[in-house]
């Protein structure tokens, strides 16, 4: 199929439809309302169900009901809306229902702003709602990758019977890029014999998250943990860039920020500084082993984010104290420029001899100089 020029939000919607995501519930919020608008046009054409709900509190419960009845159900929203959905996501995880959530992240906290951000990293990968659960979290860095991810998201949601979250920033949602819709083949999925489709010729099915017996609840917790462990073994995805030759600096960045880092690497190379990039594609499970493997070959790591430092915690956790892990970020809806990331790298390279590897002082310094680094980048 020939490539078409599409806005990220609309391309995500079209890809979801092609992946069989035919039950879509939503509530308008900038910067992802185009998904809802597109779905409202397309769903009647393909015989799907589109419904604009009364709130983002109701949306995931509609997804819960539809998914519980065996449909491929999904929604999309942006940060404040995703916060409201956390109740439903927790119930979906507990009831072991498949569902796909797309978060086109905007600046926060609170009402924040409508410009791109990566400030929902911790919410997405560490749980978000109450209780002991995880979402499988995918992070596209281009419109094409977002398109390719939707079928994968639906497949993995069904396969694991677990919520999958696709985290794109406002840039991914709003940007227009040429995309191609490819047919993706997956191994056959087990029948949804647990769904509430009417107890005809079988015992009643129950979609439920209530277990008053602590033994039964713990069994669920253990079963969920095993699921997340399987994801850690089988679902880790990342991209390496420029790692095939020696490098002094390993940049770690996902989504839009990773694209900026590729420009950063070219600019650093022009100045005689070798740098490489690790781009996590799955944020949960996080590519910990890759961080360690590639980080060992660098003098230090720099986590570049559109936040005040969230993924850096996972980078640090993966790297331990073997190499210094630094952070550079812009927030509030400001996208970092390649120039200021270059400057941040150079500042660290110059400061390296005075910065003992991985001890407490270095970590304190990392935190205390975040603001200073940002200002340095502006000059």
């Amino acid at each position, binding site marked *: 199929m020939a490539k078409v020029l599409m806005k990220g939000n609309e391309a995500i919607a079209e890809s979801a439809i092609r992946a069989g995501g035919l039950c879509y519930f939503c509530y308008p919020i900038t910067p992802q309302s185009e998904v809802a608008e597109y779905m409202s046009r397309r769903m009647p054409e393909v015989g799907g169900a589109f419904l604009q709900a009364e709130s983002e509190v109701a949306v995931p419960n509609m997804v819960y009901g539809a998914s519980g009845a065996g449909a491929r159900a999904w929604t999309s929203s942006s940060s404040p809306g995703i916060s409201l959905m956390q109740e439903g996501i927790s119930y979906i995880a507990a009831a072991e229902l498949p569902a796909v959530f797309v978060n086109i992240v905007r600046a926060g906290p609170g009402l924040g702003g409508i410009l791109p951000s990566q400030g929902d990293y911790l919410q997405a990968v560490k749980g978000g709602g109450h209780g002991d659960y995880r979402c499988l979290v995918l992070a596209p860095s281009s419109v094409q990758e977002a398109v390719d991810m939707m079928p994968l998201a639906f497949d993995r949601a069904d396969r694991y019977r677990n919520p999958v979250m696709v985290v794109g920033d406002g840039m991914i949602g709003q940007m227009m890029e040429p995309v191609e819709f490819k047919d993706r083949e997956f191994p056959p999925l087990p029948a949804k014999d647990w769904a509430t*489709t009417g107890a005809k010729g079988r015992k009643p099915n129950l979609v439920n998250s209530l277990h008053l017996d602590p033994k039964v609840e713990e069994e669920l917790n253990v079963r969920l943990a095993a699921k997340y462990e399987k994801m850690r073994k089988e679902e880790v995805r990342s991209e390496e860039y420029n790692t095939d030759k020696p490098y002094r600096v390993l940049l770690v960045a996902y989504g839009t920020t990773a694209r900026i880092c590729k420009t950063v690497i070219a600019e650093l190379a022009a100045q005689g500084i070798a740098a490489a990039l690790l781009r996590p594609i799955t944020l949960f499970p996080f590519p910990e082993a890759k961080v360690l493997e590639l980080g060992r070959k660098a003098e230090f790591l720099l986590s570049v984010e559109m936040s005040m430092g969230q993924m850096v915690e996972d980078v640090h956790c993966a790297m331990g104290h073997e190499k210094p892990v630094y952070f550079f970020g812009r927030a509030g809806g400001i996208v970092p420029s390649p120039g200021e990331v270059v400057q941040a790298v150079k500042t660290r390279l110059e400061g390296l001899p005075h910065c003992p590897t991985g001890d407490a002082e270095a970590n304190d310094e990392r935190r205390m100089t975040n603001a200073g680094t940002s200002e340095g980048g502006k000059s």
Partner: protein
Amino acid sequence: MRTLFQRPESLTTSPTHYCPGCTHGIIHRLIAEVIDELGLRERAVGIAPVGCSVLAFNYFNMDFQEAAHGRAPAVATGIKRARPDLIVFTYQGDGDLASIGMAEIVHAANRGEKFTVVFVNNAVYGMTGGQMAPTTMPGQVTTTSPRGRDVGQVGYPVRMCELLASLRTPGFIERVAVHTPQHVVRARRVLRTAFELQRDKKCFTFVEFLSTCPTNWGLTPIEATKWLEENMAPYYPVQNFKKFEETQKAPEPAKEA
């Protein structure tokens, strides 16, 4: 030999956890009888709420989903939109439906979702130990209104049938009671109408049951029945609020701008 009385197929054999004198058991049975009568059990999906009837799925012999507190109408919407052929009903108490789930019930009703809502109003939060509900009567003592409901502070009880009946879309709204045999007979007929309308894909259907809670009211079952009759029935009239008419579904066309 002719069978005159037996357990409905739509009920399981599990003994319920409901208190003596509580009317949940009667209401469960009425739903089960109507579903049996209409032959809908094999395509029925019930939604259990959070509250005393949180374990309703143990008592109904049919598919069930357990919803978050107040969200049953949203869950039912999801099921019905995905599978319009299924017969879907929510079973919700007054805290669930009239307090935390107010937005979900109003909008499901206003969209005309074609499922049935069974609303059980006993004027108190039962499961959590007798706290004040949105439907608690003025002056009624509860564990969070120890001096009686003060309408100057928290307003008057919410009348859900009246509130929903103010909307244009919902097709069938009726309040019933089950504290006397006559009321039980009437309630059964109303419930049957609601499920028939759903079966025929007609409209949103809402049946409110006035219910007793002897345990949290601090009364014997017989006293509780009397209390309902004297205090609740005058404020919550047992009557029909909306009858389905084919014509009322015709929307008014939007005027050209």
